């Protein structure tokens, strides 16, 4: 159920990317997809009653290894968030220039390419 909810948020983003005709809405759709995916990956690594994967002096190693949540999905999300930032910067730069060229954010009015 909880995975399906995360996927639903992903699908809302995909819907915005596929069906909206405004560039800003498309960019927002991409951001929503990214957030949902990151959340989904973190969900995959959660252990019931788990603790954060940071060792402190009180816990000993065996209970730590048995209790901690999965650290690898967190590492993946770390990288994926950084990549998402770069992607957003490029998308926004393209959107600004497209607005300068066409005077609108509407992609149905951008039809200089044909064939």
């Amino acid at each position, binding site marked *: *159920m*909880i*995975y*399906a*909810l995360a*996927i*639903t*948020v992903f*699908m*809302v*983003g*995909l*819907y*915005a990317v*596929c*069906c*909206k005709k*405004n560039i*800003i*809405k498309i960019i*927002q759709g991409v*951001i*929503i997809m990214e*957030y949902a995916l990151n*959340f989904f990956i*973190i*969900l*995959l*690594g*959660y252990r*019931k009653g788990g*603790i*954060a*994967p*940071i*060792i402190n002096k009180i816990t000993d*190693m065996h209970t730590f290894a048995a209790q*901690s*949540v*999965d*650290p*690898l999905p*967190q*590492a993946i*999300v*770390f*990288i994926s*968030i*950084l*990549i998402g*930032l770069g*992607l*957003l*910067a490029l998308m*926004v*730069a*393209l959107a600004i*220039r497209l*607005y300068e060229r066409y005077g609108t*954010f509407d992609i149905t009015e951008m039809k200089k390419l044909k064939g």
Partner: protein
Amino acid sequence: MISITIEIFLIFMLIGALIAVEITDLLYSVISIGAIGFFSSIGFLLLGAPDIAIIQMVVETLSLIILVRATIRKDIHTISGDREFFGLLSTVAILFFFFLYIFKATQTYPVFGNPVMSRISDSASNIYLAKGLKQTGSPDIVSAIVFNYRFLDVLGANAVIFAAFLGALAILRQKAKKKQ
């Protein structure tokens, strides 16, 4: 208990996403995006990922600044409209079947709170948790993985950010083509 909390958070995220996608006012939709990011950040904190929660907050703030810079203009406040009706209908139908498929897919997964490392004993995470401190000297296993075991990924991600900003500068330069 935690699963109900997370479900509530996800429902908030879903509502935020729907508002962001459907509202016509640009500023409000950008703020809704911020709200989704905020909820996911708190969610990360609850799910035992404090590092990711912090970095999500930082990156989200940056993203919002970039987005507001791009969207909020003097001459444009509201936007409206989907694509043509039949195209929209067919796309939504395809997306719906796709969604049903993924929904079915997630049913084959084990229930929430049962990560793969507890099922597969030789998975990489077990080694990280058991030997991470000894091998790398970092008490934070996530940064041990990111900056030591999987250093190549960070190198790649840095190059991605560099490429994106180089690309953004290239796209934004005023005089791009020489006169013939």
